[in-house]
């Protein structure tokens, strides 16, 4: 009996429209994640196929990736559209009117996206636009170069040549003395006595 007089919040058409838009936004966001996963998978597949030297299959994978990226752009645009409509709903609610056709159109657009996705999968065998073809080939070449560089063997690290070991005499411990030499000639005798004299003189303080 306690719940008999409970006043429930009134649900208006605007509320239902907001709910539809929010649900739409969530579904589109999920779809985005799916597409991103597919794009990443196709890129990886292309890399593997390039490694296996299967150019034709690698190009198909890259074409798929390209088409998914185009679709992702479209989903992004739809999301922006949903956000704008959700923002407009506040104003429309104040004015007490909402164009339900817009909401319905948006929902139809998403259905269209699904069928467009199926269509793309069917068309994949056929050619993309010339510009897209160029993009795909450019990406193929980039991947090929990247993988070639990755697969190159590493340059062996050269061991630096060791310095030749020099055999040096031990450091002298005694005071050097001029050895006794048998002198022939007076000039030589003078020179040697002068040398000895210099060595024997005390150093100036």
């Amino acid at each position, binding site marked *: 009996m306690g719940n008999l007089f409970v006043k*429930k919040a009134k649900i208006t058409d605007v509320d*239902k429209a*907001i709910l539809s838009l*929010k649900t739409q936004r969530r579904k589109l966001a999920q779809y985005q994640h799916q597409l991103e996963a597919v794009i990443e998978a196709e890129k990886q597949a292309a890399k593997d196929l390039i490694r296996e030297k299967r150019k034709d299959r690698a190009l198909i994978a890259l074409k798929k990736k390209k088409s998914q990226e185009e679709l992702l752009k479209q989903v992004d645009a739809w999301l922006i559209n949903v956000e704008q409509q959700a923002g407009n709903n506040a104003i429309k609610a104040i004015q007490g009117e909402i164009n339900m056709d817009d909401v319905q159109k948006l929902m139809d657009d998403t259905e269209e996206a699904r069928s467009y996705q199926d269509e793309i999968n069917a068309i994949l065998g056929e050619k993309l636009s010339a510009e897209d073809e160029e993009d795909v080939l450019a990406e193929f070449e980039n991947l090929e170069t990247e993988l070639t560089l990755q697969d190159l063997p590493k340059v062996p690290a050269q061991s630096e040549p060791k310095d030749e070991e020099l055999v040096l005499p031990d450091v002298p411990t005694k005071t050097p003395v001029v050895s006794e030499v048998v002198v022939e000639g007076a000039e030589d005798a003078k020179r040697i006595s002068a040398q000895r004299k210099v060595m024997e003189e005390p150093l100036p303080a």
Partner: protein
Amino acid sequence: MDIKKAVKDTRERQVQLWKELILDYCRTHKIFLIPLEEDFLLFTNPLIQRSLNHEAKEVFLSALVSEGRAEWIDKGHKKCLILWLRIQDWADCILSFVKDNGLEDSVMTVEEIRTGIESRGTELHGMDHNVLMRALKLLENKGKAAIFKGTSADDEGVKFSV
């Protein structure tokens, strides 16, 4: 002191400690369902190669069920829903969230409450769908919320009127 009473006290203390451990562990890791017949990290210690047997698990979880902190999902007691917050507490948590984010008289999808940007960093983020619906129904019975369907079957919304 009577030996039987000592054993009984020890047993009760053990059950109490396990109840607290289960609730804290589930709350920290945001776990709502405990499967009894599958490996569950809390009930296994690989370092000492020991794990709780089925009977012990059932004893501890049944103790939580008797306090309203858990519910058996099936008759065979193979899965247990852990309510580390009671349904009433979850309802209060939702109301606080609505007030904190200025969502009074706003429409939200049920998914938005448990996985949306606004709920990040709150207890509500990643919560069990069934528990959330029960908490919302409790709020609806109190006139604090209105649950409604959109144009497609999976459109599930709620409008708060705090």
